[in-house]
Structures are given as C-alpha cells and as structure tokens.
C-alpha cells in the first residue's frame, strides 16, 4: 500500500468531507478511550490495549474508525493469543529486511484478526545514548539501518491492510523525562542523524505518524508546525495522518490543530468539543479540520478497501499460529550475536555433559519491557527450558541463589557453566513511576544511568568465571551492555537481547551449535560508557550532538570493545574481488564471499562510505548498505549492494537541502565496522 494507491481515494474523501458537519469531521479527529476508562479496564484485570483503542469513524459515510494496536514486538492486543517476537533491537541485529517484512505481515494479520487496523509499533527513534530505556523498541544506532528495517516492517504490515504508524516523531530518545525534556540540535544533526530514517519510512509509504511527547526547540512535538506540517507533510509529501502520543501529546487545542496534528489519541481532551468551539469562534481555521478529515478518510478507506478486496478474513486461527511462532524463532536465531568465543568454547557438545546454569534470568519469561510494548503470548520458552529441551542427554543443574560457595562447587564439578545475566523490565523500558494513582508500588523501566550489568552479576562472573574453562555469558537486554569489567573472566559471550517467546530455544540452539550465530551488533560496544555521548536523563533540556555511537568513537579515534556490525560465526568467511562504482543515482558495491569453514553460515556484508576528503565536519565513515548471505561450507557467492547516492549527501542548512560533496570517497565492504574487517576502495565523485 503506497501513497499512489491511496491517492485514488482522495476525491472520494474530499466529497465526503464536503458533506460532513463540523462535528462529524472533528469526531474523526478525536480518540474514544479516556484515561479513566483505561484505568477502569485495568482494574477489572485487562491489560493496556487488550482490545484495539478506537478513534473517529463515521457511520453515515461508512468511514471505519481507526483501531489502534500497539507494538513493536508483536500485537499488544489479546491475552495469551498473539505472537511475541524478539524486540526490534534484536531484529536489527539480524540485518534481515526480508524477515522483517515477513514479521510485519504476521503482525498485520494478527492485528486484523484482533479487529484492529492500525499498528502503533513502528518505533524508529535513534538512541543518542543507548541508556535510553526504550532502545529495545528500535533497530539500532545507525540511521541507515533503522530506516531500512523500519521500511521493511512498514511494507509488511501495510501489505496486510493495516496502517503502519511511525513513532515517535521526533527526537524521542529519552524516557524518564519524556513529557518535559526539550531537545536541541543543529540543523545538520536534525536532518542527517535524527530524521532520515523517518523519511525513508515515509518514502516507503507509511500512512501514519505518531508525534513525540518531548519538546524540540522549546515546542512540543505535537504542536510543532515545523515538524508536522513543514517537514513531514510539505517537504516529504506525507499523505497520511498524524496522531498524538497518548494523553499528553497534545496540550493545547489551537497549537495542535494549526500544527497539523490530525488525531488526538487516545481520548479527547483538547479536540472534540474544544476544537469545535475553537473553529466556531475563529481561533482555528476550518481548513485545518478539513485537511485532517481528508487525510483520515482517505487512509482508512484505502486500507479498508484493500482488506475487503484481498479476500482475507483473518480470525483467531491467525493468533500465535505455527507460522508466526516460526518467524519469531527465526528472528531470534538470526539475531543471536556472538561477540566473544575464546578457543572455540562454543558450540558446546550436547553429549553426556554436566552443565551448570547460573543467574536469576535463566528461568524468567523475559521478553522485554512491561510498558506499552508488552505482548502477551501463550507461552515463553525460558533459557532454562530451552537447555533442558535441547540437551536431554546432559545433566543440567540450575542455581539461582546468591551463595558464591555453592556456585563455585557447581562450576568446578561441571563441564560448562552458562551464566544468564542482564536486564529485565525493572531495569529499562517505558517509565512507570510508582504511585498510588496507578497502583504500582515500585518504579518500572526508565532509562539506564549505567550501561553495565548489576553488581551481583559482575561479582558472579568475575568470581565463578575463572573456575571453568567453558564459561559462557548469555546477555539479556535491549541495547548496549558494557562488558569490560568482567569479560576477561569469561570465555564466550552471546548477546541474546530480549529474544521473544521462543527465545530460550534460540539461545540454546546457538550454544549447542544447532544454529550458527549470524547476528551483528546494531550498535558499537564501547569499552567504557563514557566513550558515548553523555546524557542527563532527568534534565529539562538536552543537546543532541552531531556524533554518537560508532560515528563518535571513530571520530575521537577511540577503539571500541567491539565495532558496530560485529558478530562471530562458527565458520569463517573470506571476502575478495571487491568492486565499487557509482552512477548519477546509486553507489554500487560488490564482493565475492566464500565460506572457508566447515559449517554452513551466514555473513552480513556491510558497505560503508568514508569522508576523509570532506571540507566539512563529517563522520569518518557511515553505513550505507548491507546484505545477508548464506553459504554452505566451501560455497562462494557474489554479493551486490546498491545504495542511493542520497545516503552520502550532507544537509546544507543555508540552502535548506541535501547536497553531494564532489570529491573522492572511501568506500568499504566487509564484515564489520572495523577497518581491518573491510576492503577499501575509492569512489571518485569529483566533478
């Protein structure tokens, strides 16, 4: 479903709007679910968004209401029904756009089966600092990768006639103070770092956008005519509608309406009667209402038409069905990222071994945050259940206590020790402060002020790790977890993220080698968190600089613990015969990849462009293409990657447009963001 498909419905929408009363038009723009209703539903035992939240609709003209289902790790609606996928960050580590599209399709089908029509789970914010509590909901730190993966999700969801809603527009990369934080950045940072992935998804055809809570340059994003009207609707030609983030996304009727905010979600406080009154007394021109109404009707009718014409009638049989669970497992398998494997510690042999499993997280159903992205699947396979199932001939002993002596004996008498360590919803996620009002005793989620493990996990790894040569740390978490304080004492480290409902299966398959890890870090893993841009999570204002993540470390010549795009395999690959070229629109890169090991495996080939010759302040290099390639032992394939020239342009604030620097670019192709893993070439784009 593209913009072009939807344009066919413009005239019909305009005709309807002409016949509608002001009340009818404003009703389309106003959410139906009040905070009181939501809290009341919670008290009766329902969870957030158990049923789609509806807004608008018009019976007289047969306009369906918008029915919102949250995400992104699946459809939030339902209880023990829908499929829980790995968090987006793990899907980001797969670098598999085809799979992400398939996941989008599965989520789309499940939303239709839940009677929803809008997926509020295309979260594509860029974590300026990975301590952002909701980093797990996005695809990594690189704008190009976020844009590619987000676009794939949009394509998948919308191909099943469900509206994909991008969020949170824009600069929403801090959680604790999200309602108040005022973000500032330069024009180039805005255009080159924080907005391109939104534009990519709009270009793909995303039909809805949710505003952010935070302020940008002193203005609430939901009131920002610059962001919503000027950039999104005019410059990018967005034809869909903008919805507010729930309850606090709009704080003033006139500011929001004039800025191009189309729907107040998910209740009605500032729209509804207040908007009608504002139009009647001339504070808001009716043309804003008409524009919003046309956008809403056009979009909903187009998607409804597509669904009716598809012949599909998805019912409960779709929810958590075998095919969707298989996709969830596949994403977890592809996203498992092996970041250390000293002396081939992994894979472990399954045969007759005694394996000690340590760490409280091993037996927890830990799929990530417990805020608005929480999905409620039928079951979750824990790491412990996975290991018992996968290695029936081994003796598995799990200890989750704190007695170091007990752990020591287990480590000494076992053939291998698997530590499952990391984070859960208490450590990161949507910020829910404890209060009487919401009946939460303890604060949940929020930003992480430190990027390492809990001190008790660090102590365990440092004390017990050296006692067994086969010591394996499985890291659970939504983004960067620094490992420097303990990694020397551990032989193998597997980053497992929050791997979804089949996560335990995938973790253990990777440990025993039934799958070959192929995930790549979608962020740089620094030695020290102070290498990253510093953020005060509780500040009232924050400046986002031009550099973050691997861009920053490379610029400052700081060697990370692991570079962006890094991930080991149980086999080895050789790349040669790199070829680079460019025409007026595309950069073309190709390389021959050969599996030189004994195991089938998948490599993620990455292309970076370098800006050494730039006269401007630009990154050392930036990602501009990637592709997965699966190879049997000994097999060889040529991988071709193309990238629009747009992606290496810079934003000229004086001319308010992207421009190409005419110079020689370094161009790299290889297996990680580290130059030693890349073949370098030169691309001459001088005039």
């Amino acid at each position, binding site marked *: 479903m593209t913009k072009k498909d939807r344009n066919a419905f413009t005239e019909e929408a305009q005709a309807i709007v002409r016949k509608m009363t002001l009340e009818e038009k404003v009703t389309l723009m106003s959410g139906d679910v009040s905070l009181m209703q939501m809290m009341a539903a919670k008290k009766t035992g329902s969870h957030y968004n158990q049923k789609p939240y509806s807004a608008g609709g018009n019976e007289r003209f047969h306009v369906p209401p918008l029915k919102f289902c949250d995400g992104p790790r699946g459809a939030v609606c339902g209880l023990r029904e829908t499929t829980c996928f790995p968090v987006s960050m793990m899907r980001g580590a797969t670098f598999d756009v085809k799979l992400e599209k398939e996941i989008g399709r599965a989520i789309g089908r499940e939303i239709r089966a839940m009677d929803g029509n809008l997926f509020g789970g295309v979260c594509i914010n860029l974590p300026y600092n990975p301590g952002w509590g909701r980093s797990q909901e996005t695809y990594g730190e690189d704008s190009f990768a976020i844009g590619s993966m987000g676009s794939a999700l949009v394509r998948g969801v919308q191909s099943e006639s469900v509206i994909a809603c991008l969020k949170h527009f824009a600069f929403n990369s801090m959680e604790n103070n999200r309602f108040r934080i005022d973000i500032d950045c330069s024009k180039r940072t805005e255009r080159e770092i924080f907005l391109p992935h939104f534009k990519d998804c709009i270009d793909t055809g995303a039909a809805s956008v949710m505003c952010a809570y935070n302020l940008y340059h002193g203005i609430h994003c939901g009131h920002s005519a610059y962001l919503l009207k000027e950039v999104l609707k005019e410059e990018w030609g967005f034809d869909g509608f903008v919805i507010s983030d729930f309850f606090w996304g709009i704080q003033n009727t006139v500011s929001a309406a004039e800025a191009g905010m189309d729907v107040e979600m998910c209740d009605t406080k500032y729209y509804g009667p207040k908007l009608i009154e504002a139009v009647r007394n001339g504070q808001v021109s009716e043309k804003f209402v008409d524009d919003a109404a046309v956008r809403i009707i056009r979009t909903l009718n187009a998607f409804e038409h597509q669904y009716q014409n598809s012949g599909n009638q998805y019912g409960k049989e779709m929810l958590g069905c075998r095919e969707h669970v298989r996709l969830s497992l596949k994403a977890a398998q592809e996203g498992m990222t092996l970041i250390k494997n000293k002396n081939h510690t992994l894979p472990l042999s399954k045969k007759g071994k005694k394996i000690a499993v340590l760490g409280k997280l091993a037996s927890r159903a830990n799929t990530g945050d417990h805020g608005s992205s929480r999905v409620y699947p039928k079951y979750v396979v824990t790491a412990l*259940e996975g290991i018992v199932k996968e290695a029936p001939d081994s*003796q598995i*002993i799990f200890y*989750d206590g704190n007695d170091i002596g007990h752990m020591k004996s*287990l480590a000494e008498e076992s053939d291998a020790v698997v530590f499952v360590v990391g984070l859960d919803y208490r450590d990161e996620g949507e910020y829910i402060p404890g209060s009487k009002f919401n009946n939460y005793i303890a604060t949940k989620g929020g930003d992480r002020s430190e990027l390492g493990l809990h001190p008790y996990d660090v102590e365990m790894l440092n004390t017990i790790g050296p006692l067994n040569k086969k010591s394996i740390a499985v890291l659970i978490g939504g983004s960067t977890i620094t490992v420097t304080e303990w990694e020397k004492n551990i032989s193998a480290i597997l980053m497992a993220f929050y791997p979804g409902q089949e996560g335990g299966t995938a973790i253990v398959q990777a440990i025993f080698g039934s799958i070959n890890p192929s995930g790549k870090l979608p962020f740089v893993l620094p030695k020290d968190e102070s290498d990253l841009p510093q953020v005060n999570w509780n500040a009232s204002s924050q400046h986002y600089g031009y550099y973050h993540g691997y861009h920053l470390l490379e610029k400052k010549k700081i060697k990370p613990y692991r570079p962006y795009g890094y991930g080991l395999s149980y086999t080895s690959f050789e790349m040669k015969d790199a070829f680079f070229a460019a025409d007026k629109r595309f950069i073309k890169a190709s390389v021959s990849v050969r599996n030189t090991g004994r195991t089938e495996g998948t490599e993620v080939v990455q292309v970076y462009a370098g800006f050494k010759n730039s006269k401007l302040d630009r990154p050392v290099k930036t990602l501009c293409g990637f592709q997965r390639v699966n190879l049997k032992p000994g097999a060889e394939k040529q991988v071709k990657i193309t990238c629009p020239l747009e992606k290496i342009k810079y934003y000229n604030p004086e001319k308010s447009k992207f421009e190409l620097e005419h110079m020689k670019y370094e161009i790299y192709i290889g297996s990680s963001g580290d130059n030693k893993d890349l073949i370098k070439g030169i691309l001459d784009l001088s005039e």
Partner: protein
Amino acid sequence: MKENTRNSSYESIQHLTNTSAKVMITCIRSSAYHWHYDYEVLAVLKGGIEVLQGNEKQLLSAGDLVVFNSKSVHSVRSSDTENICLLIQFSPKMLEPVPVGMTYHFFLNSAGKTYMPKLPYSYFLEIAAKIGLAHRSEHAYGRLEEKAWLYMFMAEIMQNAQYELRSSSPENEENAKLAVAISKYIDENIISEQLPAEIYKGFGMSEKSVYRLLKDTVGLTLKEMIDAARIEKACTMLQDPSIPAPIISGECGFSGEVTFYRRFRHAMGITPGEYRKGFEGNLTNGEIQDYLSFNDQEVDMLLRHWAGLKV
C-alpha cells in the same frame, strides 16, 4: 517407615483426598536404601538416628531436620532405640509450576550443613512441628492448619533454603531404579556370600558398570552397600533374643562369627551382644516391634516444644 519397606524399597505413598501430604510420627528402627517420588522431611523430636545418603553418614539428634529430595536414594536407621521422629512426605506436584523437565533439589540438613539456609534450621523445624501438631489435632480446622503449615514449609524452603533445579534425564531415573533393584536383591539374598558375582551375572552388568552406577546414584561401592545391608539385617535379628548369634551371622552372609563380631563392632561401635542388651529393656511380650511404644502425651509435648509453643 514401616518394616515392610525392607521388602519393597520403593515406598508408594498414597495421598488421602483430604490431606495434602502424608504425616507420620514414629520411632525409626531401620530402612534399607530406597527412594520415592515424594519429598520427605524428617525431623528428630527425640533420641537419634543415622542417615545414609550417598557415602555420607550423618548422625541426627533431637532438633535436627533433613529434607530428602524426590528420587534421592537414602537409608535411615536408629542410633538410639528411644528415638521419635516426625516424617512428612509431599508430592513434587505440590511445588508446581516447575520448569519442564526439571525438579527442585533442596539443601536442608542441619546435620550435614552443606549450603546453609538463610534462616536458622530451628525456624524450619518449628513449622514442621506445627504440621505434626495440626495433623494430630482433633479439631475440624486441624486439616486446614496442616495444609496451611505444609504450604508454608514448602514456601520457606524455596525462599530461605538453597536449592538447585536439576534436569531429570530419563537415564538418571533408570539408574536410580536399577540401584534400588540391586539394593533389594542384596536384602533378599543377604545369606549368600557370593553376592557381587551373583549381581554382575543377574543384572547382566560388568563390575565396572555396577561400580559407576552405584557411585552415581547411591554414592557407595557394591561392597559397602552389601556390608551395610548385612549389618542392618543383623541389627534387626539381634532384636529378637531368641535367635542365637551364630545363626544371625550365617543368615546375614558373614563368613564366620569372628568376621561378624569384627564387622559389627566396626560399623556400630558396640558388639552384637551389647547391641542386643540395649534392646531387651524395651521389649514387651518378647515380640519384635517396628515401632517402639511411645505415649501420645509425650509426642504432643515434643511437638509443642519444637514448635516453640508452651509445653
């Protein structure tokens, strides 16, 4: 722990519909190596007993408490004829939900003291004694109290004692069954002096595989197991003053009286004669009793004492 456990090493434990577990207050004489699916809590209220788990022998005296895990092979025998013990058996099902394919293995043994619990042992004993008291209660609420304290006990061991979750591979279970079968064979054929050879042949196993099996499950060598069984049988027979010592020596498979005396004294610290003497005072009607008589009032007093209530 009835005498007949000597013949059927696997105790099948029937749960009555109105109780959640089996509770017994008894004097323990002896039981051969056995195991059961149920967890077993053993609290010594008075006197002493000897517990054999693996190759560890522990002496438990009044105030001691031990939890035998589901399917763990163990044996218990009296070290003091005056002992009174509280036994509580509960099904692994009562601990559910348990991760698929795993079982809880608790570490709670006030005489062994590996992996100390977070709270003093007396705390667990108090709850166990309250289960016993509720079990003996004549009031209608007694049944509810019994269940309540039982659940409390399970919650407390999970929260405040150490445990491991262990995978129960089918192989482990088969091995435990085989070990118990060997133990049973030993008991039934204790008269034979050629037991090891008969066992290798009868079970179709090599000496090496029997050794490995028993080390893994019971923690003893075959010889140690046979010796223990001979001594145990001798203890039982010695309690009947009508059986002459040379008969006992032969029935128990000792190669001669001298060996019998030496081995018995080595194992028990006293001679067979001294052991026999110790029993005579307790006998009524000249009959062997598995449960020595004890009076109900004393039991209530003991339970109240260990429950920390006014006696």
